[in-house]
């Protein structure tokens, strides 16, 4: 493996470069995936059948907390990558742990939110609107869940193997993914919750 030391660790080998580009393309596909979900959501938004509307069920408090948690985790993963570039293993791991805790807390609130919806009669089967809503939120939540475990595995690898070109590459790619999920959440927050509550 040829290692080019003039570049940051995550870009230092040919393979690493390929992986980063490949992941950007994957994010392109993910954008299309969420774009389709949003399209379906906006089409079905007002088709509530006999069920409740968005204004009936959305609650600002948990959503705000979720938003703050996820935005904060995006910031901490950024710090983790910064620490990684400075080759500080401990700090990298620390920020990773904070990120994952924030992610888990986000998921906790989201689960609460879902049970709340079901409770007030907005289950998956209620109407086209609820189906689209829960699928869109659920897909994002599923991404965060997978991301949580992925991040956990990377954390363990950093602990065991140190900051190598490989683990650095994985961490960097993970951070791209995590930021991406954050951006999607901002769309969800603005165009599903805020718009729905207005």
């Amino acid at each position, binding site marked *: *493996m040829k290692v080019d030391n003039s570049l940051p660790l995550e870009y230092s080998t040919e393979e690493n470069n*390929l992986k980063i*580009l*490949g992941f950007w393309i994957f994010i392109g596909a993910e954008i299309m995936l969420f774009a389709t979900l949003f399209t379906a959501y906006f089409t079905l938004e007002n088709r509530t059948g006999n069920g409740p509307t968005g204004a009936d069920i959305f609650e600002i408090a948990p959503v705000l907390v979720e938003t703050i948690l996820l935005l904060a985790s995006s910031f901490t993963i950024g710090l983790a990558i910064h620490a990684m570039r400075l080759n500080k293993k401990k700090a990298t791991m620390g920020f990773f742990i904070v990120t994952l805790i924030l992610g888990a807390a986000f998921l906790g609130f989201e689960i609460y939110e879902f049970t709340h919806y079901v409770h007030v009669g907005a289950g998956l089967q209620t109407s*086209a609107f609820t189906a689209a809503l829960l*699928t869109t939120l659920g897909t994002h939540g599923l991404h965060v869940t997978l991301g949580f475990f992925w991040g956990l*595995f990377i954390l363990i690898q950093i602990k065991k193997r140190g900051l190598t070109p490989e683990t650095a590459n994985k961490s960097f790619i993970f951070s791209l993914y995590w930021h991406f999920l954050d951006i999607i959440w901002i769309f969800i927050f603005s165009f599903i919750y805020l718009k729905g509550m207005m």
Partner: protein
Amino acid sequence: MDFFDRFAVPHPSFLIYASMVGIGLTMLAIVVGITYFKKWGYLWREWITTVDHKRIGIMYLLSALLMLFRGGVDAVMMRYQLSMPENTFLDSQHYNEVFSTHGVVMILFMAMPFIIFFFNYLVPLQIGARDVAFPRLNALSFWLFFMGMGLFNISFIVGGSPDAGWTSYFPLAGNEFSTSVGTNYYMIAIQIAGIGTLMTGINFITTILKMRAPGMKLMKMPMFTWSAFIANVIIVFAFPVLTVLLAMGTMDRLFGTNFFTTDNGGMDMLWANLFWVWGHPEVYILILPAFGLYSEIISTFARRNLYGYKSMVASMVVISLLSFFVWAHHFFTMGQGPLANSIFSITTMAIAVPTGVKIFNWLFTLWKGKIEFTTPMLYSMLFIPLFTLGGVTGVMLAMSAADYQYHNTMFLVAHFHNVIIPGVVYAMLAGLTFYWPKIFGFMLNEKLGKWTAWLLSVGFVLAFIPMYITGLDGQARRMYTYSESTGFSAMNMVSFIGAAIMAIAFVLLVYNIYYSIRYSPRNIGSDPWDARSLEWATHTPVPEYNFAITPQVESTQPFWDSKKNGHQLFKGDIEKIHMPNNSGLPFIMSCIFFVFGFAMIFSIWPLAIITLIGILGCLAYRSFEKDHGRYISVEEIKETETRLRGAKK
């Protein structure tokens, strides 16, 4: 027994039971054969676990040929059913099942793997690379595709076939009207194969962007590589739409959601729209690589540089953009109003312009060329006029007002077969004949090949041109029979004869393969057609590492320049080469996917959950795995090189 009832065929017939026995016996024969010849180890080491793009390509090819057979049998059954009025060979339910599986099999499990075979085999060779960017992912792509294909194909003997058309419009595809598990198969099998295809897209874009030989600027890439690049970009943008669409369809069918239902706010037209947002780009994913192959073949056998390289590239880029903005032309009659219809009419007709540019470029390439009529060239020359006819009827269909007459008639069926068969299928056969010697080390017989091409074309014209006429006269598509008084009988009989001739042409193709394996000379060298691009610059058979020394490129046809203009392709010394390791993980994970899909289709939840955990377990294993590949030593490369150089004259 209740549990097992669900696996029974809901609407059985003698033919289905016969195929069941046939499939069972064939499987048994294969297993016994492999065991008897002690080939399990070989199969596992050399094929199942391989990450070599060439071998993966060949497996795609075999799948495609198998599916060509399956889809072809479906086709002949349909044509026979319609050859006479009031025929009772198939009843309405069987006819529904047959046209639904025919469409899906031909588009997704025949044409797609066929082009992906070309991506796999050719792209790394054409750009002078050692493999694709992510060889392991490539294996996973293949196996997911393969398992999706397998799942789809067992539907007619386990639980029932999909029967709502390859477009599977709701509410027809909903639980109310499609009561068997058939449409579950549709949703889930295509989903699994589709994920594989999406990863193929990511893989090839990265490969083409990052792994080109030194000197090969984007505008020096061979035309097939360009077409592959653009097709893969379309894949990456179109397939996620399919993923979401199928997931929503699955939820409607399995979890009782209301996306596409007719009550509680559901909207059936959302399916139609999203289906074609994926579906129309999909047809361009198929046709663009076909265009790429024709470009390679026509320039090789006209012995001229491809005319209008830049406009070829530009027209493909324009086509790929436009292909995302025409989807509503598939349902002009379904109520979106004159303004929307007019806009989609215009965007659709606009696609004919860049397509026309390409046709003229091929014609100008032929102009003053020293044309040599080999089999691949013959296919290309048949393609140009026949495909143009299909394009013209496409523009007719694109006129939204007129489409009220054509829509969902045999005229439409004639149109898309007219573009897909001379466009895509001919390209696949031409490309197969052209690259056969590179892949297998001997040529297919030219005389038999030309017979196949001509028979296929005669069959094609007889089978599909009459449909334009009966379609204009009002024969609807997807109708299992008609009465004598409609006057459609004679034309439909002609169609059946045409279909039979096409079937004979395919048999001849198979015979050609058999004949050539036995009698074709083997000492043909590595460049039997006197071709132009890099894939011909390496040995036949292509060594594992493709090129011992990475080639240097200065023009769009480096190999031609090295033969005629003294360009030096291989500079420098042999160095050790880094190669990826084989892995069984893609196969194992895909097998678990298969079981997961099966469990979902039949709503066997415990099994679904267990297999889902299995899939996640594979991913976790992959995350922790250390795999740095291996090196091929200089001695080993030199040895292989001398051996291969000795093999050719």
